[in-house]
Structure formats: C-alpha cells, structure tokens
C-alpha cells in the first residue's frame, strides 16, 4: 500500500506526482513582458538610489529598470551582470525584502516596493534565453589563478579573472559546480536546473577550466596550489555542521539539514525521497526554513521549527518565516532541544523553553519526531588554511588572507552576511584585487 501523510516513519511517496510537481514549482513565477513593463513603470529613478546602496553588489537598479521600461531588457541584463555575474540566481534567491526592496522608496511611500528581484530575473532570463554571453576576455596575461570552490564566490571570482585575461582553474569537491546554488537552496527557488544552466552560461566567457570532484586537503594541498599558480582564491564555503549536543542526538533519524536539502536538490524523483511523518527542524536561519518548508512540501504531516531565540532574532527574514507558516510549518521560539528519545531511531524530541538570555526555564515538553534536521549553523573545515578568526578565514581589504597570493571570499571568509549576493561581491572584488596585484608585479 502506498504511503500517505499518516504513514509513520521516514518513508517515500507520501504524495501524488502532481502534488510534488505543484509543490516544487517556481515559488515566484517569472513576470511576463507585460507584467515587467507595468512594474518597471513604477520605478521613480531615484537619485543616488537607496536600493543600490542596499545591494551588496551595488547593481544600478534604477538604470536597469529604466532599460526594461524602454524595451531593452538585454541592456538591462548587462547593467546587472556587470556588477553581479550571478544576477540570475540572485534574482531568485536574494532576500530582497531585507535588501533592495526594503530600501525602495515606494516601500516607504506605499508599503509596496518595486518588485526589483522579479524585474532582475526578467532581464537576466531574457538575456540568457537569447543564447548570448555579453562579456569578452581581455588579451591573455599569461597569469594562472586557482579558484577553490565553484560556489557563488568562486564563480564570480573566476569569471572576473577570466575577463581580465587570466587563465583560471576552478576546483570543487562536489561532482557538480554551483556550490550552495546547486546543493543548498530550496528547490522551489531555483527549479528547472537553473543553477547548472547559469554555470554553463557563465563559463561561456572561456579561459576557465573546471575540475569537479577535487577537494582541497586530499591530494591537492593549498601549498601545492600556491606553488603551481600565480594566485589562489578560496571560496570553499562552510562544509561542517554544528551539533546541538543533546543526549541522543546520534539516534537514527537525526540528520543535517544541509544534507537533507542537498539530497532533495539532486533527487531525480521526489516521490522516491523519504521524509518523516513528524519532522522537527532545529535552527532559525535560511537553511532551517528551507528544510522545514521542503519537508512539508514532501508530504510530512507535522513540521515544527524550533529556535532558541525570539522571532525577531531569526536570521531568516520575515518573508521566509511567513512562507514557512503559510505552508503549515509551526514555529516555536525561545526553545532548545535537551534530549532525543527513542529506541535506536528517534521517536520524540524533548524541548525546554529558554528566556531571552538563553537560560533554561525548566518548562519542558516533548514533540513526536521521526526525523530531526539540524540547522544550527555551519563550520569551516580543512587544515592547512590561512589564519582564522571566529571560525572563518580572516580577510582584510578585498579578501586578502594571511598568506601571500591567497585570497578568500564567501561564507568561508570573515566579513559580510552569508548570502549568495555577498559571496558574489566578495569573489568579484577579490578578482579585481588579484588582477591589480598580478599586473603590478608584471
């Protein structure tokens, strides 16, 4: 008999194929040409626009919107991509409600900002659909740069370096490029293989060799890379996951949310992907929300997100929180797991309420749980790395590390929020600094 929402345990096929298709389709369907023109007309073309300031990659948003409004979406895309080569992905995954759209003056005026993210997607989709790549390489410099990590930071760095005429080799531990774009973001934000399509499009510039399945720390050491290349950029992300350290957290059914999401992203058939009946997600960031929402969309009966601090302190934006509750996720705040119960496999999780200073209150309760997903932060893994600070590679300026000729950016490096768009900005800026350094040395 086929499984359904009530079937106990971690099982596959709780829903019909139609349910899976509907649940994991585009969260925000793209604007059509008419919708884009109507929306673009709302932009006031502000002076020194607040939305530009709010964008970590400083895209000239009023300009690209005006270019859409005047029927030149490809020019709009060039404006975007010049600043942010992953503008297509950022249009889909950026928390615009806390960045450009929060700063939009129409948010102040009417509570309805211009839908900048959607317009950015319209422009970049239009350009990518045209089959063109608007950037060309400069004359070869003869310099070679190793980029470790094919995530947003590494890809942005590699593209900018290739454009400057350098030869770039990107190494990535995973079998596919894209980093969190491919493995770490909710499927409904970037459906239809967009992450891979974007990487393929980005590589069209030429001069970039991709070596997937090659991890730093195995046969390939940072020392060897430094010897073989003129410069090295580390965009290796955060490969480890924090444990919550409660008794029983090694029981069967307790998993990392990142692994759950990665498996979901790579699944060929969502109907074959098992999910618990009673799922508890521990954490309050974007990963926690992505895991909780997707568990619900896979057909879990009850999904509860447990976060140790208040709603206001959650790293996930209000929009993301509301998305989760709208899908039926229950959010419990000021609560921490204290024990995982079960005979081999998890059956229940015991939670204790905490006050605002994270002190236990003594008030405890249990939630039925056959699957527990940990999303309480990721950690940098790897020996042989440049000096660290607060668990990350310490960088100064445009990603300079403690080692000569080694730069770092993205989640693995200090500074900035752990956002795709921030990683792109850091990779881009590091590339400019690498270029300046290499050319100054002649």
């Amino acid at each position: 008999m086929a499984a359904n929402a009530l079937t106990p345990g971690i099982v596959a096929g709780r829903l019909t194929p139609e349910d899976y298709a509907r649940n994991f389709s585009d969260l925000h369907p793209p604007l059509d040409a008419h919708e884009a023109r109507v929306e673009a007309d709302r932009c006031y073309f502000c002076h020194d626009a607040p939305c530009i300031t709010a964008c970590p990659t400083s895209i000239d948003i009023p300009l690209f919107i005006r270019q859409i409004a005047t029927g030149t979406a490809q020019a709009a895309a060039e404006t975007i991509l010049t600043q942010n080569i992953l503008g297509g992905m950022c249009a889909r995954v950026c928390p615009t409600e806390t960045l450009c759209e929060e700063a939009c003056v129409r948010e102040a005026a009417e509570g309805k900002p211009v839908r900048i993210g959607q317009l950015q997607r319209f422009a970049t989709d239009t350009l990518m659909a045209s089959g063109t790549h608007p950037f060309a390489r400069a004359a070869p410099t003869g310099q070679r740069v190793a980029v470790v990590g094919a995530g947003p930071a590494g890809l942005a760095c590699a593209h900018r370096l290739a454009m400057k005429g350098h030869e770039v080799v990107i190494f990535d531990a995973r079998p596919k490029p894209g980093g969190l774009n491919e493995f770490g973001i909710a499927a409904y934000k970037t459906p239809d293989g967009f992450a891979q399509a974007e990487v393929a499009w980005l590589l069209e510039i030429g001069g970039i060799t991709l070596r997937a399945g090659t991890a730093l720390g195995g046969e390939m050491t940072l020392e060897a890379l430094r010897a073989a290349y003129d410069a090295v950029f580390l965009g290796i992300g955060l490969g480890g996951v924090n444990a919550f350290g409660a008794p029983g957290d090694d029981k069967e059914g307790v998993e990392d949310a990142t692994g759950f999401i990665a498996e979901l992203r790579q699944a060929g058939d969502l109907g074959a992907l098992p999910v618990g009946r009673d799922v508890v997600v521990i954490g309050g960031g974007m990963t926690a929300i992505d895991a909780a929402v997707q568990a619900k969309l896979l057909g879990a009966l009850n999904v509860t997100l447990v976060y140790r601090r208040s709603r206001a302190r959650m790293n996930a934006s209000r929009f993301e929180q509301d998305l989760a509750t709208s899908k039926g996720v229950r959010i419990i705040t000021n609560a921490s797991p204290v024990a995982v119960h079960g005979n081999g496999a998890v059956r229940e999780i015991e939670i204790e309420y905490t006050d605002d200073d994270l002190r236990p209150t003594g008030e405890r309760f249990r939630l039925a749980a056959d699957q527990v997903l940990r999303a309480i932060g990721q950690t940098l893994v790897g020996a042989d790395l440049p000096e660290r600070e607060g668990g990350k590679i310490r960088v100064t300026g445009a990603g300079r590390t403690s080692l000569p000729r080694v730069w770092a950016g993205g989640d693995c490096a200090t500074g900035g929020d752990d956002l795709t768009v921030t990683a792109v900005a850091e990779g881009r800026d590091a590339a400019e600094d690498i270029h300046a350094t290499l050319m100054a040395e002649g």
Partner: protein
Amino acid sequence: MADLTTTFIGITSPNPFWLASAPPTDKEYNVRRAFEAGWGGVVWKTLGEDGPPIVNVNGPRYGAVWGADRRLLGMNNIELITDRPLAVNLEEITRVKRDWPDRALVVSLMVPMNEGAWKDILARVEDTGCDGVELNFGCPHGMSERGMGSAVGQVPDYVQQVTEWCKTHSDLPVIVKLTPNITDIRKPAQAARDGGADAVSLINTINSITAVDLDLFAPEPTIDGKGAHGGYCGPAVKPIALNMVAEIARTPSLAGLPISGIGGVTTWRDAAEFIALGAGNVQVCTAAMTYGFKVVHEMISGLSQYLDEKGLASVEALVGRAVPNLSDWQNLNLNYVTKARIDEASCIKCGRCFAACEDTSHQAIAMSPERVFSVKDEECVACNLCVNVCPVEGCITMVEMAPGSVDPRTGRGVKGQHADWTTHPNNPGTCAAE
C-alpha cells in the same frame, strides 16, 4: 447639489458635457448610448456634401503617446469626416433628436468653399430638428488637402465668408470650430464673430506625428510603409487648448463671444478649468474613446461637488472666473517672493528634487548622508521644478515670504507693494517721470 443645466447660445442641455464631433458621434447607435449614459449633448460627426461617400484608409487611423503604465496621454488620427451617406446620417439625427428632446444635438458640417454647397446642406440639416450647426474649420489632415477643414480655418477671410453664408441661409445657431494650427487664435475668432457666429469652439486637433516605427522608418500610424501627419488630441493638448480659449476670453474685441472648450478634457477638473477660463461648456472626445461613455458620471458628480463646495449655484456662475487673473508677464508682481519647503514627514527620500535642482537648476537643495533633503533659501529662486518632479503631492510646496523679511538669496527686503517689469529700472522701455 448644484444644478448643472447649461444654456449655451440658447441650446439647453442637462449638463455642460457634450461629446465632440468625432468617431463617438458618427451614428445613431453611439449617440443613443451616449445619451443613455448621461451626456448633455453631442456634436454629430461632420457631414459632407451629398455624393459618393468619403473613403478612409483601411489601415490604422490612430497613433498614440503613452505615459507610465501605458496611460494614454495623447492620440492622433487620420480619419476623415463621416464616410456614411448623408441621407442616412440625416435620418438618424432626426430620430435621435425626436427621442431625446432635452439633449443638445448640434451637427458638424464641412463642404467646399462655395455658397451653394453650404446653402444646400443647411437646408437639409434644418429639417432634422437639430439645435444648431458647428462649422468644421479645423481638421488638419486629408480634407484640408482638398481645401476644406483647417485650410479654411487658417484663412480668417474664409472663416468670415463661410460664417456669413451660414447665417444668411439658416436660422440655426452657428458655432465656428477653430483650428489651433495657426499663429494667433484671436484672428480667426474675430473673423468668426465678424461673420456673425453665435459661438466658437476650440481647439480642433493639432498637426502631429506621434511616433516613428524604427523598424520600418515610417511615421505612425503607418499605412503600407508610409505615414501622414494626423490631428493630435487627448490630455497632452489641454494646456495648448486652455491658452487659446483664454486668449479669446480676455480679448476686449471678442468679449462676450461664447466659447465651447475642447481639448483633452478627461475629468471634471479639466472641465472646470476650461469653464473658469471662459468656456460656456466643454466638448469631450478622447476621454470617451479611452474609457467609454461612462466617464461622464465622474465629470457630472465631480463638477457638481466642486460647485457646491464653492457655493456656486450654476455652471454659469463659474464661467470666466479665472479670466481676470490671466495677465501678461510684464504685469506679474516681482515683489512676490516664495521659497520651496520640503515636508520631511511626507518625503519618501527618492532624491528627485535634489537631482533636478543640482543638475539642471540652481543647486538650491541640500542632501544629507541620511537622505534628508532641505532647501537652501540663499540659492532658491522658487522655480517650482522640485515640486513638479516630486512623486508625492503636497510634499514640496512654495511658501510666500512675508513682507518685511529678507530674501537670503538677494539680501533685499521683501516689499509688500506690487512692482513689475513695466516699472523696473532694468527695463529700457520704462519712462522715468520727468
């Protein structure tokens, strides 16, 4: 609630909103529906002389200019006068007027420049029972190439001549519709009055090309790769029309000449503005063509509310109230000093005022790092550009400086008494008292 009943050159209608001679008034079906919707009157689309019907192009007739959100701001057309047989139009006019005796029904006419042609058609039109005729001396395209329409309206002698023929051969009230495609609107208006016209109506459409097809390299609307200038209308032409209406209203030799105001009337407010500048009623076309006949409901309720708020008992009481305040530049008070004021509470911090002033005006707006915008009184010449570009109505206002205060820009005290160019020392034409 104010009574909107209007009597214009002896023609009474329940409100001052008439549909102008144009496609909406080309046939019985439309006009009946317009009256059912509440329009006070119509000017039936222009009739030509009996004979083979007029032909129109079979490609697009209209071009357009759009604002944000594709709002239609201006439109032009290359349609000619009615292309339906004269007898059919006359039968329909007769039936409609019989069924709608309380509404104004004026018939627009355009026939060649000879007395017999005008005499013949006037006789047939009188038999319909219509309330008056309007002489189409305005259409700037097509018919003008055949010596009619604006080809007549551009020559005051012709205007007077035809008006005289019409007054000679008919007892119907005669409205002369003027073309704006001239240098001085007062000349044809004077000619109409001298010819005995009961009223003038204006403006007809303006010579225009709305756009160029950049693939075909041809003006729009494009007919098989070619274009011709058309007549421009809609909200975009209102300022031109208001000025021409006002020029007639304030000219002493034209005093008392009734005016039917036309040109971009889209809301009750537009209508009130035309009336305040001297129009006895208004004619509407583009607004109806854009939104349908129902727009007249808003015009009726809006004008009625406005008259009530102003304590005006009738439309007549509003006619011409702004005319005394239309003057020449040389008479404007140079001692009237204002400064822009930005209301920080309603400011949404878009910075458009700053960009406009800094880049194109007088560098009179300061911008703080927190995006607080303030006016530098020592630089502000009160040009009003910031007010015009601000997206929030009322956020920036021009505030008058009190007499006795010192204008920080000039360092001079603000004087209470009027002083203008006619007495200004820099004016070489000023005659010093000797």
